């Protein structure tokens, strides 16, 4: 998929190469609880991104010297499958994967009540099955859902989205081509109920004013993602609730009519 350098990423009508408007996110599909063995799991498709997250824990920690006396140790592995990118990527962890594993862990840690489970491990695995830009944000989004799915108590869900600058315009949710060909890319993770930014990185060049615009746009994106995440959690359990409501209605009716 070679891109001629001359081809523009955004046209004169501010329509992006994949047809989106400047502040439009890629379409998202999320499913929660799809893996049988993990304590919690979730899967996301965002544009061409396909990412899976799974949680094991809190569980006994091995090796023991990694145990923390006062809280659970959150361990995170962000990994890309060899077939996830255009040119096959070696399965060995790259420096980029090491860095992302760290910043993703640091993005999620503030949301978890790790202090409830000292000396245990909460192991988080993020597997990128197909990549098209913005994988660390999508990874954080499913990881947060996997943690909720595992029943691990959290302060908030963590919602992540990237914004940036491409061909002079401020845009939301950059795909791979926009990231590589644009002027700046800024992934951001946010706990919406606490106004807390837990991941922030940027590479590119932005003036002070542009920087503020991009941060604010990314926050807006995070708020949208938060709604999608909550919906994904709800739809897994809404059948439970609806069934319960039906039974209660029937019960109430029965009482009204004087039956037992």
């Amino acid at each position: 998929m070679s891109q001629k350098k001359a081809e523009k990423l955004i046209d004169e009508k501010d329509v992006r190469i994949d047809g989106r408007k400047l502040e439009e996110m890629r379409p998202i599909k999320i499913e929660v609880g799809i893996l049988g063995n993990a304590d919690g799991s979730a899967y996301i498709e965002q544009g061409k991104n396909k990412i899976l997250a799974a949680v094991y824990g809190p569980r006994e920690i091995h090796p023991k010297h990694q145990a923390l006396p006062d809280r659970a140790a959150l361990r995170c592995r962000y990994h890309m499958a060899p077939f996830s990118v255009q040119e096959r990527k070696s399965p060995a962890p790259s420096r980029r994967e090491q860095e992302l594993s760290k910043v993703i862990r640091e993005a999620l840690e503030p949301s978890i009540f790790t202090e409830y489970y000292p000396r245990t491990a909460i192991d988080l695995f993020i597997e990128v099955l197909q990549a098209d830009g913005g994988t660390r944000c999508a990874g954080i989004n499913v990881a947060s859902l996997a943690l909720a799915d595992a029943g691990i108590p959290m302060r908030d869900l963590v919602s992540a989205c990237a914004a940036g600058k491409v061909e002079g315009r401020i845009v939301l949710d950059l795909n791979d081509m926009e990231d590589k060909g644009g002027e700046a890319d800024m992934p951001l993770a946010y706990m919406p109920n606490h106004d807390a930014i837990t991941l922030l990185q940027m590479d590119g060049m932005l003036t002070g004013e542009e920087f503020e615009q991009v941060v604010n746009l990314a926050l807006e994106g995070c708020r949208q993602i938060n709604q999608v995440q909550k919906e994904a959690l709800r739809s897994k359990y809404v059948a439970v609730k609806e069934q319960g409501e039906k039974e209660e209605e029937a019960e109430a009716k029965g009482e009204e009519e004087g039956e037992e």
Partner: protein
Amino acid sequence: MPIFCERRQLVTPGDLLAENDYIHGENTYRENGKIYATRVGLFYNEDKRVYVVALKSFYLPMVGDTVIGRVLEVTLGGWVVDIRAPYVAMLRASDALERPFRAQKDDLPSLFDVGDMLIAKVVAYDRTRDPLLTVLDRGLGKVARGQIIEITPTKIPRVIGKQGSMINMIKEETGCHIVIGQNGRIAVSGKSPEDESLAIMAIRKVEEEAHTTGLTDRVTEMLREKGEKTKKEVKEDVSKES
């Protein structure tokens, strides 16, 4: 009235439930005067207390709990037991033998070996060490017969029922001996595999429909219907044997 949710509303972690004068109950936390949910579940409030019944959570040991565990390892002085919790539990030889433990003479694996299922009680547990078990009380010890099933720990109270109403009914209707572990494991042993299957079916029904009302009656009905046949057959077998 600073409550932001309706009864039985499905909430997710971080959802704002109430503000100020409320007591934060299970699966919630308080910060800056606001109360938020920590898990996915159904919102309830009773008097001044707001809480969330979690749709999924895991077992955390409490001193006094009866648990059903699986022996993972035999060590020099006891056993390491899996109780489906974030922490493995320890059973010391002194909490399993009625007399003092003699390292040279006592063969621990002959008492409990790897893979054995035990009914035990949690005697100690705090943040600084793994839970400690005992099997010395009445009703505790190795599970020798019957079957063991696993259910979500949050459903255990429902399986027990108000003052034991549900579990006692199941025991009566099926004639089974049932031990409930707070950690989501239940040991069922009956006079026949059919009786056991019946009891297990009832327990699974409770687990699935835990959130509904009128469950005790429906389970009783189901047991009686299915039980009619089986009871007849068992009576015939017993009279044949004697």
